[in-house]
């Protein structure tokens, strides 16, 4: 049913009742006392002056509306503006002192979990800089505490809690995958290695669990890049190798913190100088300014380098050289979590220019880029929500289509999957690639020798 949805069917997600078993089961267990107790606890005890200031300063001017890709994708339906999401959830909870119905909570889960990508674009459009993403995460915190989090993302968080990775990858499966990739990559370089637990390496490379699970080829590519650049690197054989974190998106801040803690302790144990991480946006956010903060690490305790930054360094220093530039026309999607989230958009453009012959800019871009519609844990809410997610991604679809490029570079796993869904669903003729894919394709496969 969801698959057959077309652009012309003006589906109104809020009227269409999506059934999410996790939410339904959770709701059925709730009592009015529990509901008001949890809501009031979060709203008065857990949140502070910042939350209050946001509630009290919002002048309901509606200027944030234009910022939101989901509002734009829904033909400017006022219910989808950032401030409207606050009005329909938090303001009501405050007004009713937490005494809200189950139907209200059901709508709340939908709004906070599937109609906000926590992309922070609206903070740049609100004259007060009100952080609606933060507000929506507080709502998700309430849902977490009421145990009405959508099924699939909750399962992901469960995996995080039990295995310290998001896809139930068992400890041996992880190592086995690395060894298997190492073996495969020896086709390219006969003595290539993925050094495991190398104490005192310069770099610890960390990835997100979907890589060993479904896209092990990406580890292969990175191994080739690391090897060709002649780097002293390692990957941990122990939990802590996964830098992703869905718990931060369900408001399970405790598990989120444990994930970040394990990640950094693993790096500290290996005595590395820095952590280089794969092309992922939300994972960067989780270890750069979310999970680490709950542990009390104001900034990453071990230097954290996103793949874009790393590739940029490799290509500008000449450790990786381009044999022949990539020929197809490319455009670039700036993942919110590393453009708005880390200002890497200019380096990303320099990288594109080093690697590719023709680049078509996407508009809006850089800090102002639209989220892919999958971010903020929305895609992780899984199949029940895919139909509404496709509707909520229409603005993104128009934006990428306007570029007319053959290839879309999306240096973030989450964006990648989200954009794949868009391209497939709407039949956009575009290939989606990581920077790693392109570098692997165009690089000179020789080993860099440092001149002494």
């Amino acid at each position, binding site marked *: 049913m969801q698959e057959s949805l077309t652009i012309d069917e003006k589906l109104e997600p809020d009227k269409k009742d999506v059934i999410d078993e*996790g939410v339904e*089961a959770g709701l059925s267990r709730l009592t009015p006392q529990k509901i008001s107790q949890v809501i009031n606890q979060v709203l008065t*005890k*857990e949140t502070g002056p910042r939350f209050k200031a946001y509630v009290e300063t919002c002048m309901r001017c509606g200027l944030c509306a234009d910022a939101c890709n989901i509002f734009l994708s829904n033909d400017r339906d006022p219910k989808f503006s950032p401030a409207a999401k606050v009005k329909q959830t938090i303001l009501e909870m405050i007004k009713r002192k937490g005494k809200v119905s189950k139907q209200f909570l059901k709508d709340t889960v939908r709004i906070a979990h599937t109609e906000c990508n926590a992309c922070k674009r609206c903070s740049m459009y609100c004259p007060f800089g009100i952080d609606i993403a933060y507000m929506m995460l507080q709502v998700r915190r309430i849902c*977490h*505490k009421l*145990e009405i989090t959508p*099924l*699939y993302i*909750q*399962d992901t968080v*469960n995996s995080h*809690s*039990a*295995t*310290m990775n998001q896809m139930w990858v*068992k*400890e*041996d499966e992880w*190592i*086995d995958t690395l*060894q298997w990739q190492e*073996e495969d990559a020896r086709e390219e370089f*006969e*003595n290539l*290695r993925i*050094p*495991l*637990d*190398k*104490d*005192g390496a310069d770099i610890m490379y960390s990835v997100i669990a979907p890589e060993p699970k479904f896209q092990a080829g990406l580890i292969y590519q990175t191994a080739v890049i690391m090897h060709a650049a002649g780097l002293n690197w390692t990957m941990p*054989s*122990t*939990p802590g190798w996964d830098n992703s974190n869905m718990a931060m998106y369900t408001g399970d801040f*405790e598990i989120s*913190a*444990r994930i970040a803690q394990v990640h*950094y*302790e693993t790096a*500290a*144990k290996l*005595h*590395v*100088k820095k952590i280089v991480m794969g092309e992922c946006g939300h994972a960067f956010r989780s270890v750069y300014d979310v999970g680490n903060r709950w*542990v*009390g*690490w*104001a*900034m990453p*305790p*071990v*230097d954290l380098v996103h793949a874009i930054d790393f590739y940029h360094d490799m290509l500008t220093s000449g450790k990786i050289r381009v044999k022949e530039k990539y020929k197809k026309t490319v455009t670039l999607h700036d993942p919110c979590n590393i453009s708005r989230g880390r200002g890497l958009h200019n380096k990303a453009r320099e990288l594109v220019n080093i690697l590719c012959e023709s680049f078509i800019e996407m508009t809006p871009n850089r800090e102002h880029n639209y989220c892919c519609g999958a971010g903020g844990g929305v895609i992780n809410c*899984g199949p029940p929500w895919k139909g509404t997610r496709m509707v909520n991604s229409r603005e993104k679809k128009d934006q990428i289509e306007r570029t007319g490029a053959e290839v879309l570079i999306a240096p973030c796993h989450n964006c990648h999957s989200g954009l794949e869904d868009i391209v497939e669903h709407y039949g956009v003729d575009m290939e989606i690639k990581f920077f790693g894919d392109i570098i692997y394709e165009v690089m000179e496969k020789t080993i860099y020798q440092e001149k002494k």
Partner: protein
Amino acid sequence: MKNEKSWDWHSEKKEIPVKEWQNRFNWVEEHSVSPDGEKIASIVNTDEAEFSVCMNGNIWEETFEKAWCLRFLPDGRLCVLASNDEEWTVCVDGTFWETWFDYIWDLQFTPDGSFVAAAVQKDGQYGMSVNDKAWDSFYENISGAVLSSQGTSAAVVQVDPLGQADIEGFNKGIFAVALNGIAQPEKFMNIWDLAFDSKGEQIASSIRKNRLDYSISKNSRIWEKNFQFSWKPEFINKGASVIAPVRQGGKWLLFKDSVPFWDKSYEQLGKLAIHGDGQKIAAIVSNAYGKWTVSENDKIWDFHCDSMISELFYSDNGSLLIAIFKNQGYWDVAVNGKPWNIKADKLWNPVISSNNEILATRMEKDGTFFLVVNGKVYQEPFDMIFEPKISPNNDKILLKAMKDGIYLRQILSLEKVL
């Protein structure tokens, strides 16, 4: 250790060329050096998909299809995880364990080296094997394996199956602690941070009871109180009590047996260090956001750093409390609250002399390794330094290092270094 006295503390310098190994083999993996510094070994590739171990230039007779995790045991034996015919086991000094598995990892050993353990998987079932004796029962999954000094083993195991995206099943609690392979009957939503008592008989751990309630368990008996969160517990008083950092009312506290132990509350209270049976207790703490320090018996050091304290431990007699910390981008050591100020890029835990007076370690700075003794940097640069050792009568130091492709075993007089 008893036999340290019998080590060669006199030959000033011994050299083993290792660079030439590169010519003999397709490639040579990371070096591992024996505690006495007499042996250096690496996994080497001898042929296509054929590996062996080269020690002091001599190659083991055994070959492997795959091998990883080469480690010298504290008693000087050499140990590697190896595979042939797609089966895996431990190989010690060239001799395989009798039992082979589908996979083996997480190699651990006791401080005297008499017990070697690893996590193992066979036919999709998980357990541990200690000195070639596999657990009697295997489980759906395993994590957080630990080995006590006495050779007892424990891990968190999944005792019930879990379907795809089965959050209800997960809520019921499918994990238990398995001690020496026997899963305890109590099941929990999550179990982390297993800790043995000093006799290797009891297990304490962090427990998540349900979505929101965390607690501490001692032998799977949970404390009465629930907490917002907790970190790793430790045993004190000869295993009679358990202490743990717990979060309550948004603050971190140290609890003992479910009641408050320290008076102060902290922004963060993490890893614990314990001297003896709890005569002295210290913790990595933060008492202002983003600033780290150490609290010893609830008294805070007059010291703080901005990034991280990664390690905290006592010398044997408890007179030295040593922290490895990072401040403004550099790693350093603080002893009883006083920083060395060596500003390292990479830094390892110091070893401590038998009289508890000398600390020796190695650091990397701008790509070069240096020996550091009591905060003083020994100026000779090396390409790599392995863990040093101070002589039993505290007058010499055993330096194991690499320089220009040659492994050096040097005995330096401490006078010269200090």
